[in-house]
């Protein structure tokens, strides 16, 4: 027990250690997170009028970011599967960074749900009267928290073992890894069902949403991991083979292709049928009765995703730079597609045919930025701790990164 507490304490100390770039980065993130906290406090006092949401468009930026991040979290399995199912050696040491990303993403998801609640002071009502299994939201609460716990356990266990310099016992984590693989699919599917199950919203009420969710998540998620791994390679000195990145590139290419294909299927069904249900889609892509706030967004997303796809398929662009460019394009593209493109248009027009547009307020945007900054902060800290532990710099009896003075104190185990 004591060893564990000491471990936690040393991790805590570790998170404050770094060069000036690290400190600047952390300082900036903390500042943004605090600005977000400040904005949230204002929202707590005045209510959700501080956002751009209305009775007509009753979900906005928060739920959009939530949806996107669920995908990011689920995408960690795209590292896990090659390693544990196909025994890929290259990726083996990198899996943990994907899992940590999942942890950070889920925490951000939960925060986005929390800030969306009108009465966060009552969130514990879900423990007293939980509408399970009828409400999809109650499923979502379970799968998200379960996924968080699974990944916390896997990462925490592996890191702690490395710290104690004992080989991890397979029984303590491999079964959980396999549960987590299935679970990752479930978090995204359940989140899709949240929307798909609403008969009153034709835009959502289609079976294609869940597969599209998965496809876009498995494109944007590994894309983010590709970028993150390179950053870690550059700044934390972790060895990341280019081969690993190229393997991820294949995953991203396939997922993005499927995503685009499903998009075409969806658009064909909507526009060719041309029934009354097409109104939201028309609003999204072309504007309706002169209202067209989302049109530039969605076409930007389509353009970004197409550009990313072209880059990925052109044989000329096998370099890392073009891969990075493609990743960046598709992350932004899918973020727009999932947020602006999936959540907001379902509310426009309203079930009574009214068109009320939505745009986030400054306060709402600050809250979103604050949560993103907080998530990045968490992720940076986790990586900051993991790298020296896994490389054997920070272990139970050696401590080159922290203060060696305390090493004797730790040897009493």
């Amino acid at each position, binding site marked *: 027990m004591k060893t564990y507490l000491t471990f936690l304490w040393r991790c805590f100390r570790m998170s404050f250690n770094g060069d000036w770039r690290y400190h600047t980065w952390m300082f900036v993130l903390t500042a943004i997170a605090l600005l977000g906290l400040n904005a949230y406090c204002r929202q707590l006092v005045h209510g959700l*009028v501080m956002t751009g949401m209305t009775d007509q468009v009753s979900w906005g930026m928060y739920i959009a970011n939530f949806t996107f991040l669920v995908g990011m979290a689920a995408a960690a399995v795209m590292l896990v599967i090659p390693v544990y199912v196909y025994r890929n050696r290259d990726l083996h040491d990198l899996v943990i960074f994907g899992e940590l990303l999942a942890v950070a993403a889920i925490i951000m998801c939960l925060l986005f749900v929390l800030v969306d609640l009108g009465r966060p002071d009552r969130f514990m009502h879900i423990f007293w009267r939980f509408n399970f299994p009828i409400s999809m939201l109650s499923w979502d609460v379970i799968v998200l928290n379960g996924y968080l716990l699974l990944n916390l356990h896997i990462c925490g266990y592996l890191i702690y073992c490395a710290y104690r310099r004992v080989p991890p016992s397979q029984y303590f984590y491999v079964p959980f890894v396999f549960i987590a693989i299935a679970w990752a699919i479930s978090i995204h599917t359940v989140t899709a069902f949240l929307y798909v199950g609403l008969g009153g919203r034709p835009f959502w009420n289609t079976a294609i949403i869940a597969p599209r969710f998965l496809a876009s998540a498995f494109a944007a998620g590994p894309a983010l991991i590709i970028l993150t791994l390179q950053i870690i390679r550059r700044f934390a000195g972790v060895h990341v083979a280019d081969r690993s990145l190229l393997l991820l590139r294949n995953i991203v290419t396939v997922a993005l292709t499927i995503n685009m294909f499903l998009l075409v299927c969806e658009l064909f069904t909507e526009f060719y049928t041309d029934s009354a249900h097409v109104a939201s889609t028309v609003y999204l892509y072309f504007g309706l009765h002169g209202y067209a706030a989302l049109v530039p967004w969605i076409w930007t997303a389509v353009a970004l995703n197409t550009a990313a796809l072209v880059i990925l398929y052109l044989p000329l662009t096998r370099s890392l730079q073009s891969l990075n460019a493609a990743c960046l394009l598709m992350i932004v593209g899918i973020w727009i597609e999932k947020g602006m493109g999936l959540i907001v248009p379902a509310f426009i027009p309203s079930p009574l045919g009214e068109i009320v547009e939505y745009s986030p307020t400054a306060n709402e945007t600050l809250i979103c930025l604050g949560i993103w900054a907080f998530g990045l902060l968490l992720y940076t800290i986790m990586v900051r701790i993991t790298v020296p532990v896994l490389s054997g710099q920070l272990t139970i009896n050696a401590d080159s990164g922290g203060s060696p003075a305390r090493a004797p104190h730790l040897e009493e185990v």
Partner: protein
Amino acid sequence: MKNPDSTPAAGGPQITRRSVLRGALNTAGGLAAFAAAVSPLRDLDRDELTLERFLQKHYKEMTPDEKDRALQRIAAEVERRYAARPELRDLPAMDGVEFAYALNLGRCIGCRRCVHACVAENNQSRDPEVQYIRVLELPRGSVDVERADHYYDRPAVPDPDHFYMPVQCHQCANPPCVKVCPVEATWQEPDGVTVIDYDWCIGCRYCEAACPYFARRFNFAEPSVPREKLNTDMTYLSNRPRRKGVMEKCHFCLQRTRAGRMPACLEVCPVGARNFGNLLDPDSQVAQILKTKHVLVLKQEANTLPRFFYYFDEDFPRNRGSAPARGSEAHRKGLSLTVLNPQAAQSLPGRGRGGPA
């Protein structure tokens, strides 16, 4: 957590007076920034954060004693805020009653008196104004809600080229809003009315997304009702004042109807377009209307089984010629407002989950 820093400072060369000082400064700076960030919380309404309120149970779980205490607490709170002693009580559903509404589209003149009577009766916020009833102005010959004007503003109504369709909560027998609520803060009562426990709702607005009739309203801001405008006749599940962050909607004026009176919107209607009553009583006006008129429900394809019916009364002069002609646009596009077979209409509500057997 045991703090290893408690080992003598002399043990580590890093721990000098300077580094301690810098650490202290950083910590102080961090705390100050944090304090500044949360400073808006000073204006938080403490009223909402009492232990009593925190521990209050779900409406259905309260014992009679606990309910009494909750009612007293809420009454005291209302008195503090509005300087008027409310007559707050809990009116349970009556046995053998299932409420239903029938609205005569042929008569409605679109004057919106029901909208305002409802606001006054049910203590909705005046600023921002929350309204449960939406009156749609539709061009004659069309029932496509996408062609409706929600904000029509005419010197005189009715306009001869339009007809008017008020929409409020349809008290569905198969309500999607109830299904989705993660905390069961909204449910269907035995008399068929879907209610909300305003002290239980967590404000996630999932129900608002699920309702196909745009019937639910969320308190984005703290509701404000002028003191002199407060209706003090109130019940727990209906028109007691709400606070910000919770959902509300039409509840068929339970404070009136469960006490044998008619809803406020019905009483104020100048042309008698509105009919309300007990479906299970074959002699009631609504039961008669369902039996003898061609009634319609909105968005039948959503399978929500509304207890709110529309009909065109052929006898009324205003209505003459407004039934959609064969081949007219209404006839083609009338998918969402489908004529229901009166027998089917009668058997509808009994199939509901909350309806009495």
